[in-house]
């Protein structure tokens, strides 16, 4: 398996993806949709980079007219992941629209299922939501989203052009981008003797018995299994191929037994505190890790690796408006506010996750002291989004098999 060239795998996995997206997907939403969102009349659609989707904009969907004044004395209800937006950025918005007497109230959720459940209950009129892209289809088909009026969002010009026509929402009818990140490997040069980035296969370093007890794996079944697939040169991170999943299972079980990894999402705490020496990591978490070094230690010892050719997992989170919201104009303005360069940078200075701003590049990030020089590699580049791999929503049956692999790993870890 591992001998096969990447290219061969690429073409093969593309074929599998197409075959899968044909039939099996239909059963995905209907039966075992955890959120219970009913699929739309046209049947569920699943977007992927090979299969871009343009969502229809029905006339009654609540798109607002041009040139409306912001709502007076309103409370804008923002529904976001916990600790995912800097309070200062929110307060700045309130100040900016002070003459309209705007208040912003941020409520939080821990995962998307929880968020959708609350939206379905319909008791709170949230205006703005921060979903992951794999939920976009469900949200639109469940009639939760309000189509955007682009005239209120001129700052879209400040972010990567690709987000004006993303594959999950062609023509950005419903979404604007919030943050982007890669998944790679982070390590400490004072503990790990090899230069992980220079190894022929850096992923293998996580299996190195010398680091027993000091290895971190992200507590995320897609990321952990996906990383194991990549280690073996399998680049279809949405694979339905049981041979691939079995391979990943065997290697993960082996990892659990020989290395005894810590499995959590505290990579940004564990690495600075030397609880781990080498860890699977999200780029945004490594930006944050610098704030968690114990007193008297320098963040210089940390490094982050993401394949230089950009062939690794990339991801983005989005901002959407909810149809239930009472303040659509302010909602648009809030989106526009977050897309502004200065605001976006301010936000990143606290939450660590990079906004896809055109002006941000490794030099700029280091220059602005958002990132120490040694973690420059944690910058996300536009090219990564062309070469990188996406975790897409899995059909139910495939998802079950992924979960089975994960259960076996967790049982041993």
């Amino acid at each position, binding site marked *: 398996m591992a001998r096969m060239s990447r290219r061969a795998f690429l073409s093969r996995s593309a074929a599998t993806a197409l075959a899968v997206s044909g039939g099996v997907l239909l059963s995905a939403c209907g039966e075992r949709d955890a959120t219970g969102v009913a699929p739309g009349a046209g049947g569920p659609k699943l977007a992927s980079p090979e299969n871009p989707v343009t969502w229809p904009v029905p006339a009654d969907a609540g798109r607002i007219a041009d040139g409306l004044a912001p709502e007076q004395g309103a409370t804008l*209800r923002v*529904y976001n*992941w*916990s*600790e*995912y937006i*800097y*309070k*200062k950025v929110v*307060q700045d918005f309130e100040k900016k629209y002070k003459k309209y007497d705007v208040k912003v*109230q*941020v*409520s*939080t*959720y*821990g995962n998307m299922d929880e968020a959708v459940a609350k939206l379905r*209950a319909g*008791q*709170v009129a*949230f205006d703005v939501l921060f979903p992951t892209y794999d939920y976009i289809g469900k949200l639109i088909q469940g009639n939760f989203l309000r189509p955007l009026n682009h005239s209120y969002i001129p700052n879209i010009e400040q972010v990567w052009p690709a987000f004006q026509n993303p594959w999950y929402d062609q023509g950005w009818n419903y979404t604007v981008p919030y943050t982007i990140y890669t998944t790679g490997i982070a390590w400490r040069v004072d503990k790990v003797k090899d230069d992980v980035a220079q190894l022929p296969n850096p992923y293998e370093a996580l299996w190195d018995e010398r680091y027993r007890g000091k290895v971190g794996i992200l507590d995320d079944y897609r990321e952990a299994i996906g990383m194991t697939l990549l280690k073996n040169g399998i680049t279809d991170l949405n694979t339905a191929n049981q041979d691939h999943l079995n391979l990943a299972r065997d290697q993960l079980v082996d990892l659990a037994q020989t290395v005894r990894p810590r499995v959590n999402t505290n990579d*940004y*705490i564990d690495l*600075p*505190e030397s609880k781990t020496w080498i860890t699977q990591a999200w780029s945004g978490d490594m930006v*944050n890790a610098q*704030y*968690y*070094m*114990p*007193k008297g230690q320098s963040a210089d010892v940390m490094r982050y690796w993401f394949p230089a050719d950009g062939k690794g997992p990339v991801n983005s989170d989005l901002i959407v408006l909810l149809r239930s919201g009472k303040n659509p104009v302010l909602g648009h303005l809030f989106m526009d506010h977050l897309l502004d360069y200065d605001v976006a940078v301010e936000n990143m200075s606290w939450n660590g996750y990079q906004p896809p701003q055109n002006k941000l590049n490794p030099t700029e990030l280091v220059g602005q002291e958002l990132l120490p020089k040694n973690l420059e590699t944690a910058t996300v580049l536009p090219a990564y989004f062309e070469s990188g791999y996406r975790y897409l929503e899995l059909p139910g049956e495939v998802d079950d098999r992924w979960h089975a692999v994960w259960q076996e790993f967790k049982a041993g870890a």
Partner: protein
Amino acid sequence: MKRWLTDPWRKPRLLAALVWGYLAWSVLPVAIAVWFSFNAGRSRSSWQGFSLRWYWQDPVLSVWNDPDLQRALLHSLRLAVLTTLVAVPLGVAFAIGLDRWRGRLAAGFNFQMLLSFVLPEILLAVALLFLFTNLLKAVQLGTWAQLLGLVTFQLSYPVIICRARMLSIGSEYEEAAMDLGASPLKALRHVLLPLLSPAIFASAVLVFADVIDDFVLVRYLSADAASEPMSVKIYNTARASPTPALNALATIMLFSSLLAIALGFFVYRRLTRGERTQESTVEGFAAQI
């Protein structure tokens, strides 16, 4: 060694060690959490220097400057005060009623009281959520739903505590008062209620303390950030990357509840001045609770 072991008058060193060990075990994590509220950096597990940043120095994220944290704290207090104000008088009335009222219906209510005492909170929470979102839609999730839920859940504390106290008081004092010409209502007001006051007070303290850190019910019945008390806030942020501001807030909570308990103790001592002959005040207070 053997003689020391079999000596019935030896000092209970093992027990003492166990007690001290237990105290250390339970106090240490709290002490560490308090300690980290003074951390200079963002970490809640590695020391980055001393500062008061998370209390008021940080211009955005400190307890003093973050309206979200204050709102959560206020909401906790609001729920605790309102629940106490509603549940305790209701519970006392209920206790007196159950004590006087015989028959099958009363027995049924009594059983129901005991049932809600042992019913897992999560069952009640799920049931109420279902009730408020599907049947009684007029009750919006949020403060009102939370208050209704908490009163339902907490009502049994004052009932059980007051009934226990009434059993020990007996009916003689009231009968004596009525022999001397007091009307039943007067006997209730001037004799029974004063005698019950330590129990009423103890149940108020208990309900207050229990509501302020209630999590299950209030989380299920909360709507948006405006109706999320401290406990829910802590839970929500604990799984992301919370700052030591949360520790600072918890520290403030800790010391204010310690203060409340101390206050409760002294008031209880005043209320039971005449009765303190055999047992110490602490034991009496603890026994009431």
